[in-house]
């Protein structure tokens, strides 16, 4: 009996480990490539010197250390955070199309930031100067408040309406906020408008090393909570009644998970602007690789594949294009939207309820 048990219990752990190694490797390759290649191409020697011997090659050092490394690290952290937040959202809402963007949480963050910018514009030029200098703290506060408020509202709404309705509401919230924001920004002065629209683009290139510190601390907190609530979220796959009968304190779990989502999503939204599609599609990759819907093994996979997707998309954005540069969200949409469409068409539960 023991051998029979073991063969049946031999899980897909090997595949998961192999996939994580492959992702890490790919991440290193893409990272090194984008660090060396761009408007200015650096060879390996220049990259090495720029990273470790800045005195020997000040120009390369500035490009690598001040511009490219923060950008790559930001993409890595943001992608990982968004990927994990997607896993949490899809488990919490029991909705394979849920993520911070599709359910309107990013819109909440946008609205929060717009309000902060406008408030600062009314308070006077000194406040705007402060915001530009310390954009992290002010914009973070706005984004965190906005994301949190919208998250709570969506959870409340999810008890009353079905999955598809909730998604449509989330997307409509996005449009509503866009409209509101243009009105609000209209009343902010030109400088405030520029602060906001610079942020609203969605890019990993606007962060400095100091910003990274502010960004990474809440994200680490969010990751820890995500891991801690993964067991309860696995039970939630059977629905609330069964989760409770399996010993899950559902109310506490819901609060913790929402807290983790806010901690993961708000800093990214504050420092990078709204970044779409990563949280939505990465959990599906993770599930396909791990071949399980248990939450815990999905977390490292989603973090790694999220980071890989973010850094790769950012690499494409920063290739030395002749004209101007591409937008990060445009690249993500080109990858993400077809994935979402095929998921919708292939998933019986979503197709049936439409």
């Amino acid at each position: 009996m023991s051998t029979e048990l073991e063969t049946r219990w031999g899980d897909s752990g090997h595949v998961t480990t192999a996939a994580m190694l492959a992702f890490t490797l790919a991440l290193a390759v893409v990272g090194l490539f984008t660090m060396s290649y761009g408007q200015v191409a650096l060879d390996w020697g220049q990259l090495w010197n720029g990273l470790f011997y800045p005195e020997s090659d000040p120009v390369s050092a500035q490009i690598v250390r001040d511009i490219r490394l923060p950008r790559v690290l930001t993409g890595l952290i943001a992608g990982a955070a968004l990927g994990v937040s997607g896993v949490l959202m899809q488990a919490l809402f029991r909705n394979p199309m849920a993520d911070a963007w599709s359910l309107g949480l990013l819109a909440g963050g946008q609205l929060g930031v717009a309000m902060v910018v406008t408030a600062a514009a009314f308070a006077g030029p000194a406040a705007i100067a402060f915001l530009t200098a310390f954009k992290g703290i002010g914009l973070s506060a706005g984004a965190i408040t906005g994301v949190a408020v919208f998250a709570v509202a969506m959870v409340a709404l999810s008890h009353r309406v079905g999955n598809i309705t909730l998604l449509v509401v989330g997307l409509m919230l996005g449009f509503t906020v866009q409209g509101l924001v243009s009105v609000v920004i209209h009343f902010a002065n030109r400088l405030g408008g520029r602060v906001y629209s610079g942020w609203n683009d969605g890019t990993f290139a606007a962060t400095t090393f100091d910003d990274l510190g502010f960004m990474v601390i809440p994200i680490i907190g969010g990751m820890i909570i995500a891991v801690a609530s993964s067991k309860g979220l696995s039970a939630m796959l059977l629905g609330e009644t069964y989760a409770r009968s399996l010993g899950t304190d559902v109310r506490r779990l819901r609060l913790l998970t929402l807290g983790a989502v806010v901690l993961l999503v708000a800093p990214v939204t504050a420092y990078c602007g709204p970044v779409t599609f990563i949280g939505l599609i990465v959990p599906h990759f993770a599930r396909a690789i791990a071949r399980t819907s248990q939450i815990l093994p999905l977390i490292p996979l989603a973090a790694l594949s999220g980071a890989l997707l973010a850094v790769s998309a950012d690499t494409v954005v920063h290739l030395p294009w002749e004209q101007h540069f591409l937008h990060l969200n445009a690249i993500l949409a080109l990858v993400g939207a077809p994935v979402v469409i095929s998921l919708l068409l292939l998933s019986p539960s979503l197709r049936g309820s439409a």
Partner: protein
Amino acid sequence: MLALEQLVAGYPGPRGIVVEAASLELPAGAFVCVIGRNGAGKSTLLRTIAGLQSSLDGRVTLNGHDIGAMNARDRSQAISVVTTEKVSSPGMRALDVVTLGRHPYTGWRGKLTRDDQIAIDGALRRTNALAFAPAAFDSLSDGERQRVMIARALAQTSTVMVLDEITAFLDLPGRVEIMALLRRHALEANKIIILSSHDLELSLEMAEYLWVVGEGRLAYGKPGELIASGAIGQAFDSNDVSFDREAHRFRLRAR
């Protein structure tokens, strides 16, 4: 031993009291069928016993411990639940569902020990679900899914098992098979199993104890006693049908 102590099940607010149950006790190994008409309050009573909703008054104790006052984990080790609610979870295999039954015993990572695996294996065997354990849960038939959900509850190895209308989607052989399986499990493993069913005649046949829910009351006893006392007729008779005490079945009333 499971004891109801002047239990009042219902909801705060306008719906109010649904069922008042006099005090009663169930010994280990009891197999109870709960019957009553639609909307009589069977589900409310079972949810209250399982600690999924709080009682309006009175309490339920298991070996002297108040179930309503237990924390979620202790309660999950004491009582397992199967409902009629159709669960759909894309990406889960039947085995994953049964594995969730071990959650009350595993650590934060949900890692299975050898004991957990043996419990899961035994549960799959007893419900004849081994064959489709690796299949996607959503691809199974209603009967197979119900067997998987029962296997999950068996894997939970709780002292009490509460099952609400689980045979509703099954054909007659399927219903008999599942009720027989549960009755055997109660006897062999010395567990208390409480099962509600629409299937009155089958319940009369299989039950060791019968709870009849009707008009806000709970009548209980051995099936023979309840038939003799007329409690079944009281709960179910209508203008069109009446319960025949001798034949143990319903007859159309002569017009």
